[in-house]
């Protein structure tokens, strides 16, 4: 039950023989979060990479945990997906048990305990944000199980580009429009300067009692129009010789053998 380690020995043997094992699909990401005066804004790009190939042009990196809590995920796509789904289910069970709206620190503790149990092998770096009875809260969670409570945070391969924007433009007491602008600027910096991030900017605005998801908020990588027409007109290729076509009905059955299937 739980994780199965049956194939580990086989994989190690195959790697020793020189077989190239498939690489996990990562999200090679820029994810950010910022607290503003009424709540939290989470932002993410939408590119998923498998090695150096773009595996998904428009993947969803902002995951639902509860009605008032959302989580951005960087790292291995499957790990972030399953981890956030599991924690969302646990939060729902907890909400049914207590009869109260969930708190960000509950989901934080569930994530930390799960990730620490697997000692960093579950490669999920998360930005957890939400608004609960204690007000807006923003946490970053690292794959080994450590976390930070922060007013603004960036994670993923494009985190340095995004953090440079935050460090320049963040101030305490941002209003919603200012906060959306700096999140969009930060993700755009990650998309342009980092190869692992791309496509669109997704934003989720969480305030007390309301959540607004912009998917996409802005399209950065627009696919350009083809400049010319590369189709050839009929008759471009000169016909040098032709072969007479035999219709299928002209064929005769000479020998027949029925095969037994059972």
């Amino acid at each position, binding site marked *: *039950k*739980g*994780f199965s380690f049956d194939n*580990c*020995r086989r994989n*190690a043997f195959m790697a020793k023989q020189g077989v190239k094992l498939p690489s996990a699909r990562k999200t090679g990401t820029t994810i950010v979060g910022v607290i503003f005066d009424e709540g939290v804004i989470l932002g993410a790009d939408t590119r998923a990479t498998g090695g150096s190939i773009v595996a998904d042009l428009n993947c969803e990196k902002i995951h639902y945990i509860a009605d008032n809590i959302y989580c951005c995920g960087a790292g291995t796509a499957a790990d972030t997906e399953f981890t956030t789904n599991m924690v969302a289910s646990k939060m729902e069970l907890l909400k049914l048990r207590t009869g109260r709206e969930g708190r960000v620190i509950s989901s934080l503790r569930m994530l930390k305990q799960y990730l620490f149990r697997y*000692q960093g092998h579950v490669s999920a770096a998360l930005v957890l944000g939400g608004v609960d009875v204690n007000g807006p809260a923003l946490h970053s969670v690292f794959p080994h199980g450590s976390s930070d409570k922060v007013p603004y945070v960036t994670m993923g391969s494009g985190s340095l580009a995004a953090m440079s924007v935050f460090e320049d433009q963040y101030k305490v007491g941002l209003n919603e429009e200012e906060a959306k602008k700096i999140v969009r600027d930060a993700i755009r910096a990650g998309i342009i300067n980092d190869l692992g991030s791309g496509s669109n900017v997704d934003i989720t605005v969480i305030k007390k009692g309301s959540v607004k998801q912009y998917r996409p908020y802005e399209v950065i990588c627009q696919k350009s129009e083809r400049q010319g027409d590369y189709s050839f007109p009929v008759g471009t290729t000169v016909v040098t010789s032709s072969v007479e076509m035999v219709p299928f009905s002209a064929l005769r059955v000479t020998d027949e053998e029925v095969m037994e299937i059972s």
Partner: protein
Amino acid sequence: AVVSTQSGHYGRDTNYILSKEMDKQFTIPPLRPMQVSRVTTETGPFGVVDTLRSGFVNTRSEMTARHPLEQSELLYELNEQKIKLGMAKKIGGVALPLTIQTERASAAKIGRLPGIKSSYLHLEVFNGTDEDLTIEDVFEAPQPWEDLPQHPRCNNTA
């Protein structure tokens, strides 16, 4: 007539001091446990390996570690219980973990007649697992059709 009072089993003279072994039983285990027993194969009745279901047995490959987490995962629930009992001893004295262990042991014995699968409801409620889910309910969770139907006359240890 003189009514003689005899001291009962729980009178002042009874020795309440529990042995040191019981005290030591509830220490919190270290975070990085020592390398314990090797991974054992699944054996059926009479201790024989079921080759049809679990494949051929290779002792050398059984000895080598497959994944660093495998050891940790096998002992995880046991370790978690040990940690909780150790904490309970620090909070409520040695009687608290003893009470918990007693109730858990007696709840594990509440079952249906042999041959029928027991629900262990008391145990699940006591452990808090009836209203929670873990990764075992997500990955490789036993599906309803995987429970083999039990004949009423066969002796079932489950």
